[in-house]
């Protein structure tokens, strides 16, 4: 229990630091592009929204820094991230909360699939090391070395342009109205298949190689030999003893990679014009939409933090040694 409390306090502190840095950065930038934009918006922006933007971007120089900081927290706690310039007057919070589920859904699922498949293959390759199974390693290394955008473009060229099996961009059939219906969900899956496939292909090799190496290491541990000596069935030794321990470092990297789902999908969403947070960020950057950019950064930072926390907790659940105070 004390372990849990310590971790929670640690993450609360980190989150506080991240948000505070997010508060200071615009205040330290030389010049301010926002004033200019605000000037252009003059008249179209109501005073309340303008106040939000001023607080968020450090333009409210007439109040004390401390007051600014408190105001800033007040806005965040109310979920007010200001208004987007390009999609004026849509609140940034709305845009972010519309694009985030797409990213989390698509890349999250793809990452989980890649992790599960990769770890299973890695378990098998590590268990059968020194046999024909080692012949598969160069294949894995190849996929790990291929740059993502190249893989994405090849996939589009072959499966979508040439064969016409899958759409090359978008996230669902625009003719449909988003609803919780079989047809709409089917369309989402259909449109998401290709991007998900590329994400799986490009990340599965890392899981395979990582798991395989850990399996090789763990297989020579004494407790695995003991499991053999006890006459346990081979599957039980492989999964229950070797893989069970070999997967521990994988779990940490898995949770970390979940954190990068949100921030790291920029290229995928650009290649496939997928309406996730990465694509939104890309658009915000190219149109100088500062409030939207800041909102995206905040979400990305927080999601990395949450993923880290999940990693920590999962690891603690799986490894009793981390739960004791004296280690």
């Amino acid at each position, binding site marked *: 229990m004390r372990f849990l409390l310590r971790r929670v306090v640690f993450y609360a502190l980190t989150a506080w630091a991240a948000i505070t840095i997010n508060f200071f950065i615009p205040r330290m930038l030389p010049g301010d592009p926002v004033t200019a934009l605000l000037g252009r918006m003059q008249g179209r922006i109501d005073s309340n929204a303008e106040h939000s933007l001023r607080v968020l971007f450090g333009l409210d120089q007439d109040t004390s820094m401390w007051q600014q900081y408190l105001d800033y927290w007040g806005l965040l706690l109310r979920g007010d991230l200001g208004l987007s310039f390009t999609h004026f007057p849509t609140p940034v919070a709305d845009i972010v909360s519309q694009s985030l589920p797409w990213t989390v859904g698509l890349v999250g699922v793809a990452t989980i699939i890649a992790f599960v498949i990769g770890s299973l293959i890695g378990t098998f390759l590590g268990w059968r090391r020194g046999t024909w199974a080692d012949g598969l390693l160069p294949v894995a290394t190849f996929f790990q070395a291929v740059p993502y955008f190249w893989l994405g473009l090849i996939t589009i060229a072959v499966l979508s342009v040439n064969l016409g099996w899958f759409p090359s961009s978008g996230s669902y059939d625009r003719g449909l109205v988003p609803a919780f219906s079989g047809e709409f969900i089917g369309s989402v899956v259909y449109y998401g298949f290709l991007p998900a496939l590329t994400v799986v292909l490009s990340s599965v090799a890392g899981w395979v190689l990582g798991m395989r190496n850990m399996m090789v290491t763990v297989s020579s541990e004494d*407790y695995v030999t*003991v499991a053999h*000596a*006890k*006459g346990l069935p081979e599957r*039980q030794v492989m999964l229950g003893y070797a893989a069970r*321990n070999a997967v521990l470092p994988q779990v940490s990297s898995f949770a970390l990679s979940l954190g990068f789902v949100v921030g790291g999908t920029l290229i995928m969403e650009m290649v496939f014009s997928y309406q996730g947070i990465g694509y939104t960020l890309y658009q915000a950057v190219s149109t100088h939409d500062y409030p939207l950019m800041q909102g995206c950064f905040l979400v990305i930072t927080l999601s990395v933090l949450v993923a880290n926390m999940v990693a920590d907790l999962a690891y603690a659940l799986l490894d009793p040694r981390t739960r004791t105070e004296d280690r």
Partner: protein
Amino acid sequence: MSTGVETSPGVARDAGPTAEEPVLEVRNLSVDYGFGDDPTHVLREVSLTLRRGEVLGLAGESGCGKSTLAYAATRLLPPPGLITGGEVWLTGRDGERADLLALSDAELRAARWRDIAIVFQGAMSSLNPVFRVEKQLIDGILAHRPRMGRAEARERAAELLRLVGISADRLRAYPHQLSGGMRQRVMIAMALALEPQVLIMDEPTTALDVVMQRQILEQVMELRERLGFSVVLITHDVSLLVEVADRIAVMYAGEIVETAPARDVYQRPRHPYSAGLLGSFPPLHGPRRELAGIPGAPPDLSQREPGCPFAPRCPHVMDVCRTELPVLGRTAQAEEARLVACHLHTSLSAGEKLPDLVAR
């Protein structure tokens, strides 16, 4: 189920070779390390017999192949180790004999732990750090007795812990919450879970302090009396073996060089290496001899020379020793229960006398 197994009646200590049937018989076991053109021949035609109810001590300097023998005999040798020849005959409870090295995977799995259990040298790391002691005791039991219920298996696990003097509430502990001595006892309890006929213990106590070492060994010997299993005890501490073993096999450079009743090895070693090995340890009783030790170091097993591997260090080396490998055979004194691999015992012409070292 009771823990009482037939204690073999009438097992006399220092029994002669015909006293009891063999329960484990290793014949001409050879092991190489490395698959290439030039593997290291670590074990060369090792033969060893363990009789029912007996404690057989296996002694020898570090690196002579004691662990390799234990792993090979249980078919647990990790790569690049490779068994290149030999047989390991195990007599089941029903009296049926089977060659462990020829069993199918399923038969081997069934025989492991039920007939032959092993406590490894690295007993500190023999427990899986992420599972409770309970689970690790139970899964072995259930693998062999699938019809036993979980509750019954748990009951048995508690009983096993009490057997080695650990309170049953430690079942819920993780390995890192136990002391070294406790982990060692847990491993012994685990090895006894299915009442095996043979228990192999590879340096079971080296990581522990002297007091703990004695305690644990005494406990194992006491359990042996009660449960009636046979023990192969591997150690480089000959003085310990003299106390607890019925017979001692002395190993040098991957070969057995002498095997005899423990007291005979101690009082009258017949192989110059055994004599040297005993000289390295203070005597248990009687006047203190000067500790001689053995000058020189064990040979590099990857660069075998022809002849007796002990020749470079042997005080009695003869010409024949450098060219011909001595094989295990009767001693010059033609003792019943003793075998020795040394040219001193075979190549001396009628008039010559054995050197004092091996003639007492």
